[in-house]
């Protein structure tokens, strides 16, 4: 809403309430009022909130013991690459995360369409199953999957981890996309069907084409879940070169608890991709959709 339209709206509201008020008196719009004290409060909260994150960055730039460097230095990052298997961890994390994101969007996109467009008992119970599954602790699922996967050679294997991640992102990804499709009017598809397109054709050309923000939201969500996960990775990945970054960092931290510079350098490398992704795509990400999808059916 622009300032002018807001002001006129307010004036109308005011004059309707109290006809005696001078019509020429201009009130400042509500969202302008008190902006400086709000700024100060938000500033203080933000500073407190990011202390732990800034500390990570700051410590990673400190010279280590016996170093000749003074002031801030990038030498920890060089040391980390020569002293740990971080190049493997980084590669594994990237691979696992990207494959998970692609598969979970590819599976959830059509499933979410069914959830959004079909009204039947079967679909409602499917939605309920998704909800129940989402509330189960990963710890319970991990043990049977561990036994199943050890028979299939999927333990200490990135493929096994990817399968578990896809499974655990599935519910929320499906909901998020269903919620987004709900906002696309069915009349668009009907028009496409009139023009002779099949359901699949209209899904590809009309629905998906108009769902980029929904798809991006889902992709970001899957990215965060698989990039940040610790539990599944620590159970399934056994050897040093197969670790993803969270397990690598935790193991390295246990062994070098006092060498904060090196530990934090690994931490910085690990937090940069999600932070950059979020800073760049923040405006596309909305968690409001999760709630709408959950309560809508």
């Amino acid at each position, binding site marked *: 809403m622009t300032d002018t339209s807001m002001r006129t709206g*307010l004036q109308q509201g005011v004059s309707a*309430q109290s006809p005696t008020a001078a019509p020429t008196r201009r009130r400042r719009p509500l969202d302008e009022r008190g902006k400086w004290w709000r700024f100060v409060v938000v500033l203080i909260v933000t500073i407190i909130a990011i202390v732990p994150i800034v500390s990570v960055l700051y410590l990673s730039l400190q010279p280590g013991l016996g170093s000749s460097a003074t002031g801030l230095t990038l030498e920890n990052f060089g040391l980390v690459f020569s002293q740990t298997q971080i190049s493997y961890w980084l590669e594994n994390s990237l691979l696992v995360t990207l494959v998970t994101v692609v598969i979970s969007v590819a599976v959830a996109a059509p*499933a979410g369409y069914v959830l959004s467009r079909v009204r039947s008992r079967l679909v409602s119970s499917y939605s309920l199953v998704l909800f129940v599954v989402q509330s189960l602790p990963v710890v319970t699922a991990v043990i049977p999957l561990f036994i199943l996967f050890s028979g299939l050679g999927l333990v200490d294997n990135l493929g096994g981890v990817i399968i578990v991640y896809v499974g655990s992102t599935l519910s929320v990804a499906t909901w998020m996309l269903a919620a987004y499709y709900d906002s696309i009017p069915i009349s668009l598809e009907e028009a496409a069907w009139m023009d002779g397109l099949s359901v699949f054709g209209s899904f590809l050309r009309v629905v998906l084409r108009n769902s980029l923000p929904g798809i991006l939201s889902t992709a970001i969500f899957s990215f965060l879940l698989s990039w940040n996960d610790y539990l599944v990775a620590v159970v399934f990945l056994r050897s040093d070169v197969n670790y993803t970054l969270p397990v690598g960092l935790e193991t390295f931290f246990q062994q070098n608890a006092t060498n904060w510079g090196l530990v934090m350098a690994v931490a910085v490398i690990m937090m940069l991709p999600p932070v950059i992704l979020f800073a760049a795509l923040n405006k596309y990400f909305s968690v409001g959709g999760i709630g709408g999808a959950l309560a809508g059916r």
Partner: protein
Amino acid sequence: MSAVSEGIERARRGVGAGGSGRTTPRRRRRPTGGGLTLLLFALPSLILLLLINLYPLVYAAMQSVRSGNLINLGPFVGLANYRNVLTDPDFWHSALFTLIFTVTGVFGSWAVGLALAMLLRGKVPAGGVFKVLLLLPWVVPVVVSATSWNWLVATPQSPLPEFFSLLGFDNVLFLSDPTLAKIVVCVFKVWISFPFMMMMMSSALTAVDVNVYEAAKVDGATGWQSFRSITMPLISRSTYISWILMTIFCVNDFPTIYLLTGGGPTNATTSLVVLAYRTVFQDFQTGPGVAIAFLMTAVLVIVSVVLYRQIAKVNIE
């Protein structure tokens, strides 16, 4: 393709409202073969759901009534695992901590998130920058933030204990004292979760028309009154949803606790999930471990359903 976009354009204008001479049926008519397509759409998701989610559930249910280990199911023991778990004081201790952790996690993060969402709703200088910075605790991997919090609070030389000693409290060991460790873990959880709540509440608040507040103010409502009677009813649906989701996140949360304290000192911060994990992967007793997880899930599902019903009520109103 141009026919399609033309069709879309027509639909956008309001489904052929006059003009083109063609009458557009108001009823949805799916092309033939659509049903099969929809089935194929749902199939991959159903297969994955069966394999990764439902199969483990059934297998775990079997494990919980047997005395086995990570490799073998073991002999059938009936409800002995459940009985043993329910008579174990460690279980009740963990249940209590899970409750504390969940209640503070849910309401703490909701209160902070809602407050920030309301502060950032109007015009705030550099508001966009704050919105991104405030999401960081949620975006940064838990492994990283747990490491950082360890550095901030764990040892007497850490910054926070140093700060407290300036205030006259010497040698405050935040993660070695049971009560302080509990508080730190709960604060850590609120810190991680408030950005999620802030996002949920921000999107709920966009639905609230600011002019309503102006009208209320003219009618003499105080800030608190307009919050109670305008804001709260309009965001109550999103609030219940966010509580459900956060309850699930908190009860099932393993890394936040495990990476910061490992469940210690001496079980003080052991939640049910951490207890289940330890019972299975450190004591190798799958039966009792799974039983703990199942009991916890049962309570969780009941709580979720109660809150879910509450949403349905709000929807009707």
